[in-house]
């Protein structure tokens, strides 16, 4: 029995994994070989495996293994000049030639043989501190490597989760500020749930002596770094690293998992995807899952795994919601979702109309004049019409339109309105209490909602209605303040519906 199971897991260890690999059950626990430590599933089995490393925004495929293995990771440190923004270059120090560094994926319980190679052309010594390592310095002291040298150390990945790694050579802040960080995923023994896309995004802050987008080769600015005043806050090491042709993509109906890290060195990220809600967030890559998250905090030197389903096509903007960083320092990336629109979830724009506002000065002089005249008892019908015109433009025309024609099928007309002509005084109640439900105007049935306009005072309602009665081909007439006062004093009807 034990033999059979062992050969089974041995075979699993060398099978090629794909994204389609279904989530497996619990970790195999061999009887009599119970782990002494949690996360330790015993000695590595089978031949050593060379880890697949990927450049951002790509994530290596699931390990697909069912047993602990010896995994060899070879990471090369390269110091190189790369573009940080259009026309702006910077000397990055990198793990694997990219910022962030290569993505490493192992399985909980794996024994990881780590090789750090420092390119002969490097000026600096470097090392690596992996937050997924249990041991002093996370491997830093054991991996201190001079230019043109190669160090090796081995650790057992005891804890599952998504972890940051970074360089920890003096001056540490400068090594990190120059881009020396990345992510290592330690899969749980049963693997992660199946998704359609996995992407690797990592935020970092950068400090250059020149201003934001100042052209040319920009050196590191130590003073700005110590003062924590970044020139750039970026996803994946460059402005535009994940926009345009380089945007990450998905189709509607697909699930997306983002491994999002924050290398810092200084800034904490308020990570948000504009227009999406994270169905699941594994905060800090831990085991508790938060659901329905709008914005998640990613500390410097921390990481999360967020998952959501793409439902509506369009461009979704990944930002640090400390929003000036997004629009003035570069913290912006795009997830492009293609597919069929679902109008039941999101309609797109249904209306674009002019809105003047209730009190848009300086057009309310007529209203002021009418108010004064009413107070002194000298208000004429002409003054009422003038004041009502201004008020109509501000309050009523948004729906009923400036020409009073309304919108077919949605908002009934107030021009040549048989509904108004039939009972002008009824209109007072409509303004005060609103009107909900079916109503027929000029032979067309409307079924919508007009909210109560009781923020308008008696003078204003009287003026609006007097204006209406004397405009748009309506029959004329006058509504006085006293008429409105009378209606306002009446008890409100239970349902302000009217039929014609």
């Amino acid at each position, binding site marked *: 029995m034990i033999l059979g199971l062992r050969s089974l897991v041995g075979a699993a260890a060398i099978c090629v994994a794909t994204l389609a690999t279904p989530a497996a059950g619990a970790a195999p626990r061999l009887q009599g070989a119970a782990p002494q430590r949690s996360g330790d599933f015993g000695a590595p089995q089978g031949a050593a495996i060379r880890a697949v490393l990927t450049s951002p925004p790509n994530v290596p495929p699931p390990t697909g293994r069912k047993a602990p293995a010896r995994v060899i990771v070879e990471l090369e440190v390269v110091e190189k000049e790369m573009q940080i923004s259009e026309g702006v270059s910077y000397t990055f120090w990198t793990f694997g030639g990219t910022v962030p560094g290569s993505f490493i994926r192992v399985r909980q319980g794996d024994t990881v043989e780590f090789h750090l190679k420092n390119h002969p052309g490097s000026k600096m*010594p470097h090392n690596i501190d992996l937050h997924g390592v249990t041991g002093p310095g996370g491997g830093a002291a054991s991996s201190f490597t*001079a230019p043109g040298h190669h160090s090796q150390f081995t650790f057992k990945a005891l804890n599952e989760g998504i972890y940051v790694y970074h360089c920890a050579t003096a*001056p540490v802040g400068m090594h990190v500020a120059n881009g020396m960080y990345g992510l290592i995923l330690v899969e749980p023994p049963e693997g992660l749930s199946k998704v359609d896309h996995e992407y690797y995004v990592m935020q970092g802050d950068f400090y250059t002596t020149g201003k934001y987008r100042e052209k040319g080769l920009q050196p*590191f600015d130590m003073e700005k770094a110590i003062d924590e005043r970044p020139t750039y806050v970026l996803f994946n090491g460059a402005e535009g690293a994940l926009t345009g042709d380089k945007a990450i993509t998905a189709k509607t109906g697909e699930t997306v998992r983002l491994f999002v890290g924050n290398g810092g060195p200084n800034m904490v990220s308020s990570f948000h995807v504009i227009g999406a809600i994270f169905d699941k967030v594994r905060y800090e890559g831990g085991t508790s899952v938060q659901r329905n998250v709008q914005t998640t905090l990613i500390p410097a030197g921390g990481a999360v795994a967020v998952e959501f389903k793409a439902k509506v096509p369009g461009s979704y903007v990944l930002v640090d919601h400390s929003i000036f960083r997004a629009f003035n320092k570069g913290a912006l990336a795009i997830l492009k979702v293609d597919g069929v629109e679902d109008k039941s979830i999101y309609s797109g724009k249904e209306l674009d109309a002019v809105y003047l506002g209730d009190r848009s000065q300086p057009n309310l002089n007529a209203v002021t004049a009418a108010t004064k005249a009413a107070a002194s008892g000298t208000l004429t019908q002409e003054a009422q019409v003038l004041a009502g015109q201004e008020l109509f433009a501000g309050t009523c025309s948004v729906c009923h339109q400036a020409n009073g024609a309304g919108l077919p099928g949605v908002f009934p007309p107030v021009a040549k309105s048989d509904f108004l002509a039939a009972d002008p005084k009824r209109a007072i109640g409509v303004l005060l209490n609103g009107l909900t439900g079916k109503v027929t105007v000029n032979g067309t049935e409307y079924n919508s909602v007009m909210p109560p306009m009781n923020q308008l005072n008696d003078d204003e309602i009287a003026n609006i209605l007097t204006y209406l009665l004397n405009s748009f081909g309506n029959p004329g007439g006058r509504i006085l303040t006293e008429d409105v006062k009378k209606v306002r004093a009446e008890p409100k009807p239970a349902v302000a519906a009217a039929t014609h």
Partner: protein
Amino acid sequence: MERAALWPPRARALVAALLAALAGNGTAAEYVQVPAGTLTSAIAPDAVGTPVPIDAFSIRVTPVTKGEFRRFIEARPEWQRGRVPQTFADRRYLQDWRSANAVGDAHAEDEPVVNVSWFAAEAYCEAEGGRLPTWHEWEYVAAADATRRDARDDPAFRARILARYASATPADLPAIRAAANAYGVRDIHGAVWEWVDDFNALLVDGDSRSGEDADKLRFCGAGAINLQDRENYAVLMRIALLSSLNGSDSTTSLGFRCVRPVGDKTR
């Protein structure tokens, strides 16, 4: 160490000078005298940052060039690439040269020599009648800008040095001829890193984040360093580089210059 004590130092210097002459090193290397003084070092001997006394010495105006080093190994073929024991030089030793005895293009002769081990650098300096500078001597001279002997508090000075250190190593090293600093010394920043005599005492922890909790006792005093000047990243970088090396190591951006004692130490 095996190089010590065979002969008294004065005799060694004499032999070295003779050897240099034999090697056809007609144009003797140019040295300038640096007066005695005190240095508030980035690596102070104690927690309060007591200044370090510096005796007068003279120092090479420029780093040793490839041409100069070629003439040295013509006279001392045991330091040729391929002949030098691995204990004294790693496989990268002089690997950028076209052959064991030839640098390459003519212009390369004026570039600072790199890919040299500490042992080879010490041997060269002995042949020139000197030795490698100590860290404190080097730091003392490197503190100067064009007009001031200690410009380290000037943020602009620091930023300039840091910018040069932080840039990637160019494929072709610059020929040495940058402007002289207040001591008359050239190219101490910007061209190459430089070996120091006591690099092995620069024990920055490989992790470098242990702070006060470093294993001080393990290193018997010499390692009990405190970085006094945490904002001086330019110095930190240099210390980190030197502390990552062994005596036989060589890198594509690490060269050296020599110092010589000056007559009467009491001044």
